């Protein structure tokens, strides 16, 4: 099949079990959400997909190719780009340099220039400040930069790990609009979030992770109206 599929992934830190048989699919096109509270195993799942952790059992398959066991830079070159939790921009480099790093695998200079131009079109605020150090940006702007850097790598699948974490509400809205726009441009998205309500609005399908297991999955709208989800994650009492 095309797209990403994670099959029965197990992972433990030392003796502590973090993922206990996680399976999920991200078909080509559209937005899939992976939801859950702190410590549910969301970031661990992201790192297994990106190649930072090799699962003890199970495998990660992308467009028919098994990726688990590949190092991070090679997974990236297969078309999966992770925008990590905490943004991890290169603080002591300029915004433009950060973006150029995102296109590191591209050796054709004119192609890199094209990508940069496109990026500045999507993120005009970054263009204005291209020669400033990334460390001088606010949290929300750094998140924008991290996403823009990820897109410079021309991903087929963009994995976003908690893009709204620690960002002021006005910018959170902007980021979710941006995510929808990226998806419309044909990049598949795996959105990993604690912000359940906003994620379910944009996602076509969502998985709920708890203590290293997928406990629930379904279409975005259906989960929004699901009594359990409302109780546990949306704070709705009925």
């Amino acid at each position, binding site marked *: 099949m095309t797209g990403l599929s994670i099959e029965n992934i197990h992972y433990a830190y030392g003796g502590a079990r973090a993922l206990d048989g996680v399976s999920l699919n991200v078909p080509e096109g559209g937005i899939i959400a992976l939801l859950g509270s702190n410590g549910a195993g969301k970031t661990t799942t992201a790192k297994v997909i990106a190649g930072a952790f090799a699962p003890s059992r199970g495998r990660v398959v992308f467009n028919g190719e098994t990726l688990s066991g590949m*190092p991070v830079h090679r997974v990236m070159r297969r078309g999966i780009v992770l925008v990590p939790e905490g943004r991890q*921009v*290169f603080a002591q480099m300029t915004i433009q340099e950060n973006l150029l*790093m995102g296109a*590191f695998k591209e050796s054709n200079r004119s192609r890199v220039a094209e990508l940069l131009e496109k990026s500045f079109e999507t993120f005009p605020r970054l263009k204005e400040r291209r020669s400033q150090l990334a460390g001088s940006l606010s949290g929300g702007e750094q998140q924008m930069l991290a996403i823009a850097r990820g897109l410079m*790598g021309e991903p087929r699948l963009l994995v976003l790990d908690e893009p709204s974490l620690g960002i002021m509400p006005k910018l959170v809205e902007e980021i979710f609009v941006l995510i929808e726009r990226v998806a419309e441009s044909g990049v598949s998205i795996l959105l990993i979030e604690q912000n359940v309500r906003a994620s379910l609005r944009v996602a076509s399908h969502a998985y709920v992770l708890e203590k290293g297991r997928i406990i629930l999955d379904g279409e975005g709208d259906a989960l929004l109206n699901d009594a359990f989800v409302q109780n546990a994650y949306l704070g709705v009492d009925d």
Partner: protein
Amino acid sequence: MTGTLFLQTLVDGLILGGIFSLSAVGFSLIFGVLGVVNLSHGIFVLLGAYLGLALKEAWGIDPLMAIPLVFGALFVLGGLVQITLVSGAVRRGSLMSSLLITFGVSLMLRDLIILVFGPDVQSLSSSWLFDTFRIGGVIVDGARASGLIASLLSLGLLSYVLYRSKVGRAMRATAQQDFAAGLCGIDVKKIYAMTFGVSAGFAGVSGIIVGLINPFTPFDDTHWTLNAFVTVVLGGVGSPVGALLGGLMLGGISTFSSQYVGSLYPNVFIFGALLLMLIVRPNGLLGNAYKGSV
């Protein structure tokens, strides 16, 4: 007359400082990018000097002409040391094991030098290097002048690579966020090996210049490791400019204290300055070029 003496001391300090800078820049780079305190740094400096000696004696290659060859040889050696020995310590993130491993490497290489060249004092000097010229009242000989020029050219080249080339950007990115660098498609292990190689290469080049000016023995490596350490603390970690400033300070302190206080006392002033710097500006004059100063 005293004015001339002051000027002469200043010029000598600058020349010595240029050499200190070049000999320290690799140490600074490895610490900035890999977080490893490379105790084998001094032995790479010496290996450069001995390699220059071997090339001169075997084929009559002038030491200055041998600089590219020595850089290449040390680049390969440094990369191999990183891939085979140091990478384990980097992976574990353990400062102690990186100290032990690099110390072990320096002992092995020192014994190898003794085995091949013997423990005696050697020198790279050739006759033309003693030609002196006079600018105003200041006397400079060929060895020192060419040493200073080679140092500044090398530092400039490294700056250019770090700040203007793709691989240099990848090194700086890896130093700042190694995980994110990997996510950008950079093979972080390859960057680590290249950083080690470049650092060893520049150490080797500085060794040639050291050999042109001073005699050397296989036991000088601790001296050069220590100098690199002090230079980096004075100037700041990770940038060639920091190494240049630290080296010039170290050179200045060293020559002025031995000229005006006594040739036995430079260490008192050097380590005095080191202590003062650690108290007043623990990140060095320029701070950390990668992590941002506190």
